[in-house]
């Protein structure tokens, strides 16, 4: 015999009638006082997607999710930069302001413009070697006072080349951009960073970035050779160049080279991870990137 009476009207919904007294009893138990009924849980809104600028990629992932970290990985000539510029073009044409943190200082402005990127809305941060020179006798409250009589000793020329400096700059600049808010897409171009250096980025940094863009309309896109953000990324796409097409027949040894012209490259995109609510229909797709001079 049930301890909880079931009314005639609720016979079609016996569980609902039985649940109320149970919930009251649960609420009186101190240990269970913090249990929140599922009906009161905050409904998470669906992730807003922004078009990637490539129809095939939109069909694969639905676009790039706002408020999430996404990765594009692939080797050289795999089409990473084409995908990156397509996303920037789409976003800037929609009137959004975008930022590109270029670790390798590899952006070709002409390629960006031909891809449709509105350069006036693109903030380009060129990471690289920097020379620290201090001729001001004291820099800040944390700096010690220097000897005014020996000004030669004041010039601290700390010229550090190498990827460590670039990575440090990338992380610091990204923090500043995420705090600033208002950007449609922020791209970290780590495509030229050697894999062993890129993997030195602590996972805590990726967690911090992901946390910073949650509940914001900003898309954080990372371009790299191998996946490095771990579980912090919501979407991970791997691209690879499959086929090269030229205007004239290819790999023909007898044809003069000046008659050859790079026409398009077929790119394969594979969805390796998607943590979005919307499950993708397919896991791979292909598309073509065309040369500017192609007809």
């Amino acid at each position, binding site marked *: 015999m049930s301890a909880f009476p079931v009314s005639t009207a609720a016979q079609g919904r016996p569980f609902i009638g039985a649940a109320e007294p149970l919930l009251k009893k649960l609420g009186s138990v101190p240990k269970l006082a913090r249990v929140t009924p599922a009906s009161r849980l905050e409904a998470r809104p669906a992730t807003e997607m922004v078009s990637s600028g490539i129809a095939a990629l*939109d069909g694969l992932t639905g676009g790039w999710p706002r408020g999430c970290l996404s990765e594009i990985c692939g080797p050289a000539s795999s089409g*990473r930069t084409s995908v990156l510029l397509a996303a920037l073009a789409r976003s800037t044409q*929609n009137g959004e302001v975008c930022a590109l943190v270029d670790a390798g200082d590899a952006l*070709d402005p002409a390629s960006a413009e031909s891809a449709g990127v509105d350069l006036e809305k693109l903030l380009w941060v060129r990471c690289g070697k920097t020379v620290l020179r201090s*001729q001001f006798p004291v820099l800040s409250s944390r700096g010690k006072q220097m000897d005014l009589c020996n000004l030669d000793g004041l010039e601290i020329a700390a010229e550090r080349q190498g990827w460590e400096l670039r990575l440090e*700059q990338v992380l610091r600049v990204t923090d500043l951009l995420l705090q600033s808010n*208002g950007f449609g897409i922020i791209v970290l171009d780590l495509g030229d960073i050697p894999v062993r250096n890129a993997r030195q980025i602590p996972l805590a940094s990726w967690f911090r970035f992901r946390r910073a863009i949650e509940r914001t309309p900003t898309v954080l896109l990372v371009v790299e050779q191998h996946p490095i953000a771990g579980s912090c990324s919501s979407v991970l796409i791997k691209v690879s160049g499959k086929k090269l097409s030229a205007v004239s027949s290819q790999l023909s040894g007898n044809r003069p080279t000046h008659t050859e012209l790079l026409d398009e490259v077929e790119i394969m995109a594979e969805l390796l991870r998607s943590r979005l609510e919307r499950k993708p229909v397919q896991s791979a797709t292909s598309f073509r990137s*065309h040369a500017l001079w192609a007809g």
Partner: protein
Amino acid sequence: MFACIFIPDFPVEAIIRFEPELRARCVVVLTGRPPMGKVVALNEKARQTGVEIGATRAQLEAWEELVLRTRSQAQEDSAHAALLDCAQSFSPEIEDTAPNTVLLNLAGLEPLFGPVSKIARDLAHGMSKIELEANVAIAQNPDAALLAARGFSGVTLIAAGHEAERLGDLPVDVLLESFASDTGEAARWLETFDRWGIRKLRALASLPEVPLSERLGQQGIRLQKLARGATVRTLRVFEPPLVFAECVELEYPIVLLEPLAFLLNRMLEQVCARLGARALAAQELQLQLELEPCAHGRTPDASAVERQCNHVRFTRTLRLPVPMLDVKMFLKLLQLDMQANPPGAPIVKIHVSAEPARPRATQSGLFLPPFPEPEKLELTLARIAGIVGEGRVGSVELLDTHREGAFEVRHFAPVESETRKSAKRTKDENVYNNDSVSRIEQNAQEKMSAAIALRLFRPPLRAVITMHEGKPVHLRCLQRVDIKGEIVWTAGPWRSSGDWSEQEGWSREEWDVAVPAERGFVLYRLVQDKLNAKWFVEGTYD
């Protein structure tokens, strides 16, 4: 009705304005080269100790509690400008009578500011806000107001018809200091009145007019009318140029950034207060530092340095994307700029000026894409420039030249689009201006496809190319060991050259090549510099 604002002991007040902690102390201002300086001004506390105008520096050593300062024309100019700004915030019709005296026409202001008593109190309060202590007087005519402000401390109100009665107790030298053409003439008049036994203005006002005119002429009659407060004149309206600047000369050179920031903060507060008084904002900030020449003859290595009359001037200009009026943000921007571009020598004088502009009026929309706040963005850009270097952050503009890779990085100042649709429509309208670019852009929009992009190596990588029958067959990069291999596909060459009339002529030959990689292939762009026959790997198609 007319109001007069008079600042007694003006050279002292100009100095105390930047050092408010001295207000409670005995301050003496000297002029002349040390150690031969003489006292030209002193505050009331110093006067009470027995110090007199004209005392020498040596004579002042008897007073231990005195604070000595050198007279600063720059600070007096700043104080004078602040006085004018305060006056103009009340009345559009002012007269710049003297560096320490301003007359205002209060006609028509009562409906705006209230009764004249309130106006007088507000004027005094406005002066204290800009760190200047002043006497304020209101009377029916400007000369009576001037006499009252010079003679009475604090706030004085003289009702119409009571000028002679209120001014009667003032000593004659107040009249002569205010209206004599020079100190010599004032001394002669004072001597004459002293011989006659005229000590107060009441006595001068009561003299018979005809005998007075016979002895002293028309000038005597004029002085008598002034003593009675019976003159009538209009103001000589002065339109000061809109210069918002503050200047301070330092007693000793500054070598630390922190005290510089402290002084800049105070100066920026004054500049912003003056801008705000006129409902304006700042579009540009200019910081001029006068530097001390280095002891060993070294001069600071800064591009913004000028040398004038043995003074080294260091100038930095901050161009703001939108008119702003935020002291903290201005200070932070200047601090970041100083850290990135230090002057390199001790600072002896600071000059801050702002270019005025109308404040920005914007209205956000519900359906607009996200856009960064201009103030926050400006600060972020300054911080990023401090990390990656100046000139390495901003928007890029392609230059109109055939030279490959010619571009310029400009200051990032995006313009907010009205709507998404209008921004897209504008892009579509301009897309047909350039045939080849418009074609690819149109394709990208219609078919949403990708365009092959080039990733550059900066600087280009030196390479060794093996040629066979005029085309490259093997590639080896000297700086990157992973860039090497047999070339399986080649396209080119494409030759270009230019700037032959300039000294920096260029000539290049481009090749597109494919080299097998671990998975698939890698497309490179090879470039040969025809001037020195060197080969470079310029980038990869990605």
